[in-house]
């Protein structure tokens, strides 16, 4: 590339924003500044229109229909699966399981793969997990007598690799489940290293990619991961759809999670046998239109390109760290080595909820609270933070508006 990513994006950006009609709304009479994309991203026109078009012209239930509409629906659904397999660099399209969201994908692994883990073995998570990658393992621990270990983080917000190594050392860890990017600190974890270290002691590893896939190209084969999960609505796609990727031989060996239509090979009252993957894990009518919507979102993301996306977000994040550090009383939470476009902060003793509400009255949407990561908050000695997060449609100007409004809020309170 002869031009830098940020140039490309500045050139493209107005075009991009025009594809998100919601971004030109006003909130409390002010232009919307949407800095809550890590909670859920807005959806480009092409995704919304694609879903509507399917429902208007080529919709029926899939798989078992022998008629034209059903075949067209099935094709669109299965093409989305192929698209997502390519997106993640999966070896086989059958390794892609459609779920409700990332949370369900992780629960599927905890119930199904979890049933193959023996009491006396352990699952290893980290101190910075989202509840989605924590509570399912607690529930497994309490259900099956499996030990739950927690790898600590350093004060800067990175995973403590030495401690991680020690927790793996006794060879009892059957499965590591760690975030690929923290939704609070923005930390991008050293996935290659974590995977190598897990595999060296014979442990499998799941990466929660809910945040990571939005910001960086992920290739599960290159990473050599065992399980990878993400969620559609954060990747500019619809709600109600998530992805579990796992190695074929793992999925083959795992018992089904839910029972119902389409996941069986044959059923008698005495005994049922299971369909081959991925059907084995997709009981009942899937989120057909949403899967197709996610496929469109991924096409859209890839058309922009992760080089441009990463460059844009890196530039925004750098700018944000700069201007926010100049706001009196503001502290950014965490200084991880590698970070994505998510910044948590506190401001003197103005409560994060007051910050969020006051920003909202100025049209600025940020999130405040424990961000579904209570144990991490406790580790940081906080009960809550405010969090600004960036997407491809975020502009430098929006970050400047955030910073100047934060200054005014502080004056108002102090």
């Amino acid at each position, binding site marked *: 590339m002869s031009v830098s990513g940020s140039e490309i994006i500045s050139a493209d950006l107005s075009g991009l924003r025009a594809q998100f009609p919601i971004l030109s709304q006003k909130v409390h009479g002010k232009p919307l500044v949407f800095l809550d994309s890590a909670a859920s991203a807005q959806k480009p026109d092409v995704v919304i229109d694609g879903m509507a078009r399917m429902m208007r012209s080529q919709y029926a239930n899939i798989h078992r229909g022998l008629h034209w509409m059903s075949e067209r629906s099935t094709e669109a659904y299965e093409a989305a699966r192929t698209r997502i397999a390519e997106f993640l660099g999966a070896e086989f399209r059958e390794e892609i399981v459609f779920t409700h969201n990332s949370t369900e994908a992780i629960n599927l692994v905890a119930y199904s793969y979890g049933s193959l883990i023996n009491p006396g073995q352990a699952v290893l998570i980290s101190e910075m997990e989202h509840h989605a990658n924590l509570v399912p393992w607690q529930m497994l621990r309490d259900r099956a007598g499996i030990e739950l270990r927690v790898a600590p983080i350093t004060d800067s917000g990175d995973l403590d690799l030495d401690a991680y190594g020690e927790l793996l050392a006794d060879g009892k860890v059957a499965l590591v489940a760690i975030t690929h990017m923290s939704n609070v600190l923005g930390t991008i974890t050293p996935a290659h290293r974590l995977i190598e270290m897990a595999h060296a002691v014979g442990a499998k590893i799941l990466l929660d990619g809910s945040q990571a896939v939005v910001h960086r190209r992920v290739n599960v084969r290159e990473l050599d991961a065992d399980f990878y999960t993400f969620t559609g609505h954060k990747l500019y796609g619809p709600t109600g759809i998530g992805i579990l990727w796992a190695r074929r031989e793992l999925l083959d060996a795992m018992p089904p999670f839910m029972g119902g239509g389409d996941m069986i090979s044959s059923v008698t009252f005495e005994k049922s046998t299971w369909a081959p993957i991925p059907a084995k894990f997709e009981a009942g009518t899937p989120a057909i239109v949403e899967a197709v919507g996610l496929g469109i979102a991924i096409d859209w993301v890839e058309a922009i390109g992760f080089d441009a996306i990463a460059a844009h977000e890196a530039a925004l994040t750098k700018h944000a760290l700069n201007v926010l550090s100049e706001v009196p009383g503001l502290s950014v939470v965490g200084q991880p080595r590698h970070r994505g476009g998510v910044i948590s902060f506190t401001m003197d003793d103005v409560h994060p909820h*007051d910050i969020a509400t006051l920003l909202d009255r100025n049209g600025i949407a940020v999130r405040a609270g424990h961000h579904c990561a209570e144990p991490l908050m406790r580790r940081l000695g906080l009960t809550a933070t405010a969090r600004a997060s960036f997407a491809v449609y975020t502009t430098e100007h929006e970050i400047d508006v955030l910073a100047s409004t934060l200054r005014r809020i502080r004056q108002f309170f102090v």
Partner: protein
Amino acid sequence: MDENSLYNTIIVNRSRAPLHAGVVERATRLGQGTNPLCGDRVRLSVRTEKEEIENLLHETRGCAICIASTDLMAEAVTGRTVADALDLARQFTDMLENGSSMVETADAAMPDALRAFLPLRTHRSRLRCATLPWTALEEALDHD
């Protein structure tokens, strides 16, 4: 700035320097309210004498809305009977949650200071911040 309508002077001042923080000696009733969503916590200690609230102090960890609401509640209920205070709790919650018409029909029982929270009705996710102390009050007064 236009957020004055919500974060007005009395709310901001009371949150920064509450007038009724502390623990009542020889408290006859205790109440606690927590909001797991945000970690807010209100602890009340109350001394009642013949069904009248003689003294009420609080220890509150939370946002400005929560601290100010607790402090203004303490002020509003001190000197009232238990029944009266519980009535006010219901009216306050009602005013915010259901937008009861009380706003217009200047209800004598509702101190003006408490009306400061009315703009919250357009920030429903924050309602709990203002009603939390009243939940704690109900706990303190109901269970004896």
